[in-house]
């Protein structure tokens, strides 16, 4: 099948692209403005494939200044989008460790331990309450004062409804795209995933090989772990620019909580937290209308723990006295997780090439200094749409040269690029430690990027410390080894065990909000694995997994879809996979290329929640 424009992945970037383009395909009198070359006489034939089962199954924080989004909807009150609220108050809060169990007790993030002591001893002076210290101001580079608290799921659904209603483009969920059709230095379209296979990908009854969709322009917006974007990155002809790589990541995990009636939180309240449950883990609480709140944490790749995980940390985060006074007696409405590509400008691929263009998070648009990605992604989509309009009207082909002169030029001249330059090296300091990293971020932000820490972080999982190095000061090597062996034998989480041993208390389950990890999958929206598709997570060289002791992919798996398999190769249960992609960047093995030993293909299904 041939169309003019094939689009991969529906998120905010594709929303911006399709919203802008769909409005320009016809003239005001209904005549064709941008004519198709594949169907002469008709407008450009545009088709978009999204692997998830719905358009609203995305996951994000999300609080955004919304500059680009507002620009696309002049005169529209965006707070009418379900779960959207105007930002009213914004605070940065330092959370002390009330349990004295976090890694700050290990003296390594020394400054945090010292900060806790000073704040506690001078509590009255510093206004310490609920084991937390509210910073007197929010750094300007983080501020979202005129922005919006959003549910990305509801926002994506709202946008896709509007685009689909126009009837000008087609958006299809539940259709994973397996790979780009790379021909030399060009992308000629995409190949959809095979259907009617067993879990290993072998054809079964009703086998339908993935259809090739050829297009003059392929728009890649499948996010940081999307199969098409990563396969372009890995291609020998059109891969990443020299010196660019996507090695800095974070796993964001969140819950949408229905607050009790007297929680006291107003819609539009925005809290950014640092310090707890570990110094390296940032957190957030954003309040939506109708007593809903998004609460979550980011576990970054520079959190140098060989057993880093997220779910239990998220529970301890919610239980912090500063937050629990709001969240107590709340009810879980939704849960979700996603990987964030935090390499920013250093992870930027070629933004355009012959027959293709990259937009959104997978194109390095996320601003890691501002903690903002949705609006940036949206704006890159708008910029590409404007370029497509210009090129089509001038009857110019979608070549690298033409796309660079239109799309890339627009992006380079925009606030997205200007701010990404400021953010580019802002996180370098995390290589030396979290305190250095935070100071570096602050200095970079306050000086407009003129002063930044010098070195670049290299947080690849294989550079992680050993268990002994990470926990040896608190647990003897013999005991650590014993714990490791017992957990491997029982198939239980090593990180849970280590947390218990380090003094983290058991979670007081309440059946509503404090629930088991598996119940979060069931009660937080549910996970669906469509039949007829191959497993999308595979391990290229099993011998590498057998030699891997830490199996960080298992510890970090957001849905517990990866477990310790019988032959020491992780077992994958697709019915629990939420497609967060954490296994990709948490593989400690040196596999083929930069992404370790995990093969992460396009997969159907995943989370079924539109509230995240």
């Amino acid at each position, binding site marked *: 099948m041939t169309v003019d424009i094939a689009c991969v992945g529906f998120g905010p970037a594709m929303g911006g692209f399709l919203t802008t383009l769909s409005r320009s395909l016809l003239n005001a009198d209904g005549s064709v403005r941008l004519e198709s070359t594949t169907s002469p006489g008709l407008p450009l034939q545009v088709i978009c494939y999204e692997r998830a089962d719905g358009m609203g199954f995305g996951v994000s924080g999300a609080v955004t200044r919304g500059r680009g989004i507002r620009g696309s909807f002049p005169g529209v009150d965006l707070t009418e989008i379900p779960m959207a609220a105007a930002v009213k108050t914004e605070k940065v809060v330092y959370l002390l460790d009330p349990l004295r169990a976090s890694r700050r007790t290990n003296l390594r993030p020394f400054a945090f331990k010292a900060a806790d002591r000073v704040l506690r001893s001078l509590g009255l002076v510093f206004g310490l309450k609920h084991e937390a210290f509210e910073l007197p101001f929010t750094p300007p580079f983080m501020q979202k004062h005129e922005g919006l608290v959003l549910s990305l799921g509801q926002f994506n659904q709202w946008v896709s409804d509007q685009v*689909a209603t126009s009837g000008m483009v087609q958006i299809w969920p539940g259709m994973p795209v397996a790979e780009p059709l790379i021909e030399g230095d060009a992308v000629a379209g995409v190949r959809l995933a095979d259907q009617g296979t067993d879990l290993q990908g072998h054809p079964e009854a009703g086998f339908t090989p993935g259809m090739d969709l050829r297009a003059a322009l392929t728009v890649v917006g499948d996010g940081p772990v999307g199969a098409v974007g990563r396969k372009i990155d890995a291609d020998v002809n059109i891969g990443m620019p020299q010196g660019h790589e996507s090695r800095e990541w974070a796993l964001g995990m969140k819950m949408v909580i229905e607050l009790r009636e007297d929680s006291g939180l107003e819609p539009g309240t925005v809290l950014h937290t640092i310090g707890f449950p570990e110094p390296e883990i940032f957190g957030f609480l954003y309040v939506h209308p109708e007593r809903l709140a998004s609460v979550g944490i980011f576990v970054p790749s520079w959190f140098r723990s060989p057993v880093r995980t997220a779910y239990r940390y998220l529970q301890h985060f919610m239980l912090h006295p500063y937050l629990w006074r709001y969240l107590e007696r709340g009810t879980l409405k939704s849960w979700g997780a996603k990987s964030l590509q935090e390499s920013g400008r250093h992870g930027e691929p070629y933004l355009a090439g012959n027959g293709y263009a990259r937009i959104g998070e997978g194109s390095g648009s996320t601003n890691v200094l501002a903690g903002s990605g949705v609006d940036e992604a949206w704006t890159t989509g708008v910029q590409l749409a404007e370029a497509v309009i210009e090129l089509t009207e001038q009857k110019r082909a979608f070549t690298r040269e033409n796309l660079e002169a239109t799309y890339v030029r627009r992006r380079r001249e925009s606030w997205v690029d200007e701010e990404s330059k400021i953010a580019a090296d802002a996180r370098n300091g995390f290589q030396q430690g979290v305190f250095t990293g935070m100071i570096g971020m602050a200095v970079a932000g306050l000086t407009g990027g003129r002063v930044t820490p010098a070195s670049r972080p290299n947080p690849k999982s294989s550079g992680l410390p050993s268990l002994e190095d990470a926990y040896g000061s608190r647990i003897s090597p013999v005991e650590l080894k014993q714990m490791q062996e017992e957990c491997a034998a029982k198939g239980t989480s090593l990180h849970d065990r280590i947390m218990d041993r380090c003094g983290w208390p058991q979670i007081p389950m309440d059946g509503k909000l404090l629930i088991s990890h598996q*119940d979060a999958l069931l009660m937080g929206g549910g996970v669906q694995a469509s039949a007829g598709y191959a497993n999308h997570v595979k391990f290229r060289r099993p011998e590498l997994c057998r030699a891997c002791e830490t199996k960080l992919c298992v510890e970090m798996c957001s849905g517990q879809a990866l477990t310790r398999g019988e032959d020491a190769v992780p077992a994958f249960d697709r019915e629990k996979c939420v497609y967060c992609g954490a296994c990709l960047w948490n593989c400690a093995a040196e596999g083929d290329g930069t992404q370790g030993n995990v093969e992460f293909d396009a997969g159907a299904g995943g989370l079924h929640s539109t509230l995240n």
Partner: protein
Amino acid sequence: MTNGYHIVVCGSIVPDPLQTLEPVQTATGPALKNEMMLPAVLDPWAAHALYEAANLASKAAGSNSKVWLVSVGPKAKLQQVMMTIAQKVSFELVPVDSSASGFADAHATAALLAETIQSIPGLDRSRLLVFGGWESASRGAGATMQLVGERLGILDQFQGVDQIRVLDDVQADGSFEVLERIEGGRHQVSVCPGPPALFGWATGNLPEPRNNPQVGMANMRTVMPALQRAKSVPLPAGGLHFLSASPPKQQRQTRVVKDLPTEQIAREIAEWIGK
């Protein structure tokens, strides 16, 4: 049956079964909290009917058969669901912008469906088969399809259908053999002389069709214009009053165990229920 069938499938949307639902009282009666924010799917019972209809239409002699999907629900949600359903089988959508609430009156819903079916241009009653779900994931009355049939004056009705087989190869008069579910896990076998007839489907025997991009593109040429033209019709309460509404009680005890023998799973469930 050389001219093929005109198959009208009645199928609306329900909240995605993976969601946790919460009934609330509103000024107009009970509803599900934030139902418009929740993802929706084609009612699974009606989905079986749609797949069976498409299968029958594709196999009918002469290939002059056609499938319409009459769907009553909020236009925005119908549009979201059609993005998925339209990839699976060929049909022409006849949308009605109205309530898809599980608390709707079956009589009012049936009246609206019957009226909509009668207004489909070119529908040939002599070739008409009306399909729908025997039950519904949100309307448990199990009466709507029967009421639709009565309003359309269709005398041959079958409920709890798992299979129909055209007897062309035996009798060549267009008659069907119909398997309806009866108690005891058995089927009642009937012979229907042919259209017009109504079938309330149970699960049928067909798997969910694969997503086919070409089917999707073909369907969308009619689906989106139909949605844009969809009339907004309020669904009357029909004098229906609900004294209370509550979800089924759930008691959740999760334990993750791999490769447990079936017998042990059954034994543990039985013990758990017995507690």
